[in-house]
């Protein structure tokens, strides 16, 4: 440091000031709407806050209240069920669709546009449109079922089929993204690998199992994590299709919304629930970031 002349030091300071001037707006946005709310959320979860009286400290009371609320367990059970079902459809299906589309030598542009089209719709539009399809009376789905002589379903209005109905619309609206990512990854697999496997007498199934699958392992893991993170925060589907008070489909996010904005106006309770969700999802997010950024 001693070698630096006073002019150089002054230069360095002014350079840094300029750099931070460029970042000032960004730092403010992150500070107010990302970093501060994170701390605030944890503090809030230990406070009683309902907009009526100034917030005061209540220790672990919010967490105790959560564990005493039967809806808390219902919400977690439903969320896990939704995530599980969404994985069965939304994780496996795009992989096979991508493998199939990758073999076609015709219409490949059309297929790509087609599967991604629903992803471009505002999610609420997709869900509200399907609400008409799910109508147990004259809805499209029951009309088709009647037409082919199958028994009709109550779809979102029966506790047996409500959750699967939410998963179906969610899968329709979202699988395009994963499909296109798989397609991009499939195109990166060197053709020589298939060539070599074929010369060794591997059947199509064996090539899929021993060439495609190992080559896709990384992207599959990434998409698996992304999907778990996204589906555990499911909100729009239950909010618009079955309402925020239906115990068959109440999810963690719906319960947070209920606690804070509809029934209780209890922000402390909602914050405690958010903190628990964050702890669960944080592990998945950290793993995801480690995987995708391990390069630098």
């Amino acid at each position, binding site marked *: 440091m001693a070698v630096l002349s006073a002019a150089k030091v002054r230069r360095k300071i002014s350079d840094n000031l300029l750099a931070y001037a460029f970042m000032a707006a960004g730092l403010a946005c992150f500070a107010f709407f990302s970093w501060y709310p994170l701390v605030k959320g944890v503090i809030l979860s230990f406070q009683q806050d309902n907009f009526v009286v100034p917030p005061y400290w209540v220790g672990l009371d919010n967490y105790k209240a959560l564990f005493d609320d039967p809806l808390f367990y219902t919400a977690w059970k439903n969320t896990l069920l939704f995530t599980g079902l969404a994985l069965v459809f939304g994780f496996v299906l795009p992989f096979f669709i991508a493998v199939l589309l990758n073999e076609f030598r015709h219409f490949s542009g059309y297929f790509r546009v087609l599967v991604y089209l629903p992803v471009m719709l505002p999610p609420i539009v997709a869900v509200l449109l399907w609400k008409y399809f799910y109508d147990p009376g004259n809805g499209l789905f029951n009309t088709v079922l009647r037409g082919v002589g199958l028994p009709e379903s109550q779809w979102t209005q029966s506790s047996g089929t409500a959750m699967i109905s939410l998963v179906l619309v969610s899968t329709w609206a979202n699988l395009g993204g994963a499909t296109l990512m798989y397609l991009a990854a499939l195109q990166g697999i060197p053709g020589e690998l298939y060539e070599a496997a074929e010369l060794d007498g591997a059947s199509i199934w064996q090539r899929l199992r021993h060439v495609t699958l190992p080559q896709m392992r990384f992207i599959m893991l990434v998409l698996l994590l992304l999907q778990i993170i996204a589906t555990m925060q499911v909100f729009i589907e239950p909010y618009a299709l079955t309402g925020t008070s239906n115990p068959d489909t109440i999810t963690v996010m719906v319960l947070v919304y209920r606690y804070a904005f509809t029934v209780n106006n209890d922000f402390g309770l909602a*914050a405690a629930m958010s903190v628990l969700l964050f702890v669960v999802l944080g592990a998945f997010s950290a793993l995801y970031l480690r995987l995708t950024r391990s390069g630098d």
Partner: protein
Amino acid sequence: MTLTAPPRTPPGVAPAPAPARRRRISTSGTASRTLISAVDLQRHRKLYFTVLGLTLLVFTLVFLFPLYWMVTGAVKSPAEFARSTPTFIPESWHPETYATAWTNMRIAKYFTNTVFYATGGWLISLLVDVGVAYALSKLKPIFGKVVLGLMLASLMLPAAALLVPAYKTVVDVPLFHVNLLNTPWALWLPAAANAFNVYVLKRFFDQIPDDLLDAASIDGAGKLRQLWSIILPLSRPVLGVTSIFIIVAMWKDFLWPLLVLQDPESQTLSVALARLSNTSQVPPTEFMAGLAIASLPMIVVFLIFQRSIIGGLSAGSMKG
């Protein structure tokens, strides 16, 4: 691709057919070798075209038909729309339903709101995130790495976890003590705090050689001038993709606008549609028109920029 019968290659004679096959693939001009070889596809081209045809049919039915239903449902008469055996081609023709919805449901108002929010959010996000990315990439201030790390750490936060405290922040912004509820700032400022945009922009700026900037600096260009005249023109592709993703995200967002825009006058199209769907005042055909109008801008954006969108998605899926 030609459909002439492939030269029959006797099985078991490995070295001979290999060059022939390679030549065929390169001359056919299609993508590289996939799971099934070009030779096999040609040998079983009946099966190939059957599967292709079936897939075309099923995929069009699954992914396009619902949109067709929405667009044509709006032009049916309410009586036809409610019929128990639906008509696949509308018998009655009322395109004026779209105009009615535009005025009666006040779609015009919500549409304008959404366009305003998306445009403003796009400008502000780009301005803020380019500033951060430029400083971190080219000016390299002290603690720059810490700042980037803290921003990237925010990617770990699921949006849902911040919902309640972020709402509290918007209601009463610390230090300033202003209430941003029902104002565009409640959407714009949180949207600008987007670590993913900062990261993508910074990665692109990193690839621009410093020599270019040094040369400009010798010619007397200040830092702002260097950003404006050298970095930004060279970054058009990444700015384009980032812009599309910001605008699409703002248009599609639902939960956050639902919380911070409670005044119907200030609502976005998505939030307003959800609210209207719970009232029985709107005829279903008009509601279909509303859904179609809300989707149209995104579909147009997609059809125009599909290359960038699909390309950006594929690039984003690879190692970051």
